[in-house]
């Protein structure tokens, strides 16, 4: 008996978490899939009506905008955050005297809730109140920075604020990565007379591949869940130019009492997540089996 417990203890320890995930993630996904096939409105109903909600979803121009925004926002946010994070990490790794303070400054936005920082950003980006007004008051009367109020550009303000919030975290990831690179390799390269930028591009950065992967996962997760940010900064506007699937889903489920529609949009979102995450998981697990 004790032998049985001993042998199965790992499974016993993992079981509660696994069951929880099974029920609270996958059970709920199945539930959502089911509801997406019904005409649920205010509260979920369970009479299956077919794919009507998906037809409605694909007929809604707002959903198109939301999906396009997700890809545009997601790509820009992830790429720029990574590039900026890496750049700042490299700069910060040059024996900066005030590194601790600067690092904290770069990192702190992650600690703040977007409910509030959204308001601050709204003011800063507002042409009449913020940067544009400030620069104009300095005498540059023709200065324009009106992305927030321009339907074609507003999504980029979301990108700007999102990068502000997350790039510091990515910087921390990369900084940690730089610190764990074998210094002998770098010395050797320098003795060989290889220029510094080559050392970074050919030796250090490639050796941080796992960090790119971790950063990608954290950023992708943030991109897909971005919600507070949009609500606080633009409320999805102008019009619905900055809608994202998460805000669309929320609006349908909770403002409009259209739960079936929200469920169908959730399923499409999960499909997108699946296609992004599965390759990562595959590479993770394959690496482990070596």
């Amino acid at each position, binding site marked *: 008996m004790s032998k049985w417990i001993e042998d199965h203890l790992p499974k016993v320890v993992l079981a509660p978490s696994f069951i929880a995930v099974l029920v609270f993630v996958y059970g709920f996904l199945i539930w959502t899939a089911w509801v997406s096939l019904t005409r649920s409105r205010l509260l979920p109903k369970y009479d299956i009506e077919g794919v009507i909600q998906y037809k*409605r979803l694909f007929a809604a121009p707002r959903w198109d905008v939301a999906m396009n925004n997700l890809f545009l926002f997601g790509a820009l946010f992830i790429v720029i955050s990574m590039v900026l994070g890496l750049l700042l990490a490299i700069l910060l790794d040059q024996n900066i005297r005030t590194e601790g303070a600067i690092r904290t400054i770069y990192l702190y936005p992650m600690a703040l809730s977007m409910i509030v920082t959204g308001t601050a950003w709204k003011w800063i980006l507002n042409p*009449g109140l913020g940067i544009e007004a400030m620069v104009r008051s300095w005498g540059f009367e023709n200065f324009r920075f009106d992305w927030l109020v321009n339907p074609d550009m507003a999504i980029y303000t979301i990108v700007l604020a999102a990068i502000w919030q997350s790039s510091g975290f990515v910087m921390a990831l990369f900084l940690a990565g730089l610190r764990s690179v074998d210094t002998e390799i770098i010395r050797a390269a320098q003795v060989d007379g290889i220029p510094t930028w080559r050392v970074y591009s050919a030796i250090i950065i490639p050796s941080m591949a796992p960090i790119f992967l971790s950063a990608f996962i954290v950023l992708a997760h943030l991109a897909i869940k971005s919600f507070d940010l949009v609500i606080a900064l633009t*409320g999805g506007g102008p*019009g619905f130019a900055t809608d994202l699937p998460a805000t669309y889903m929320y*609006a349908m*489920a909770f*403002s409009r009492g259209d739960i079936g529609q929200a469920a169908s949009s959730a399923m499409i979102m999960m499909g997108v997540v699946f296609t992004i995450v599965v390759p990562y998981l595959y590479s993770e697990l394959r690496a482990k089996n070596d």
Partner: protein
Amino acid sequence: MKRLALSVSAAALVVANAAYAEPKAEVLHWWTSGGEAKSVAVLQKEFADNGGTWTDMPVAGGGGDAAMTALRARVLSGNAPTAVQLKGPAIQEWYEEGVLADISSVAEAEGWADVLPASIAAHMKCEGSWCAAPVNVHRVDWIWANADVLEANGIEMPTTWEDFNAAADKLQAAGIIPLAHGGQAWQDATVFEAVALGILGPDGFRKAFVDLDEATLTSPEMVAVFDQMRKMRGYVDPNFPGRDWNLATAMVMNGEAAFQIMGDWAKGEFLAAGKAPGEDFLCASVPGEGFLYNVDSFAMFDVDGDDNKAGQELLAKLIVGPSFQKVFNLNKGSIPARTDVALDEFDSCAELSAADMQASSDGGSLLPSYAHGMALRGAQSGAITDVVTQHFNSDMSSEEAVKQLAAAVANSL
């Protein structure tokens, strides 16, 4: 025999308990700031004075979106609040889900049917029985103006949309922003329905936004409504997107802008800044006939426990009671839902509002606001708002907007 006696006495005990149960209520609402919170506090005080225990459950945000999120979660978890701020067709929708309590006994005892305008009373009824208590009537189709600015430019309060456009052009030429507006979907919708009421007229408005009549939605008049919206877009400053409504109000106060189309809660902002109605700022209904109302109300949810039920009855009684209706609406800027409250202490705008309500109620032009969720289910009004805000924030043609409007309504089930 003995058992029967026992059970009878037990039943008597329960009844006695119910009679003596201390009223309790957990109230979910989204009135969280300044004047609003003060207004609810009045209700809480009256509730406490009548021996009740009030548990406050405020959830602000998104015009009640967050509160509705919390409400769904609470109802599904079988832990519904006692009373919930609900309005418009949402009341009937929740009733259809079978989660609302019947408060007909209170309503009949208090004679609600006699003191409430018929169209507002209709919102409070679910299949013939009373299921919600109205708190106030907000008028949505107000136009606010800076008195000094109008005077300086020799402009009268407009009574037709042509007047409005002429005044706006004049103001624009004088370097003043004609219309203060915040580019949030619900504000776009507020302006839109004010324009629609003026151009379509009360009957057209009812057909379009209550009955969702396709012919009206695609009529040339609707195209004219969008044309006027396009004009309105020209009267707004370029920095309007995302602006909070109260910042727009501040623009009128400061004289930066001349007009704002907004419900009567804007009056609270003027008053808070020490401005006087009629002197510093002007109020008028938007050009055209009719009255668009936005009625706040409380619905009672099915809950267990005699103390909670007693709380619901007491709360319903107090909400519609004349003293609360008066005090609350003095604070909130709206007017009482019941028509028999003396308006001596109210300001001129409120008096105008009350008179118009009475008149339009008699004339059949007392209409629910679509933009504030009084006329349609959320999915439907949301679909309309999507088109309105998209049109307002792009260069979409009015014809295209009308086409999309019909399609969106059809797609909203």
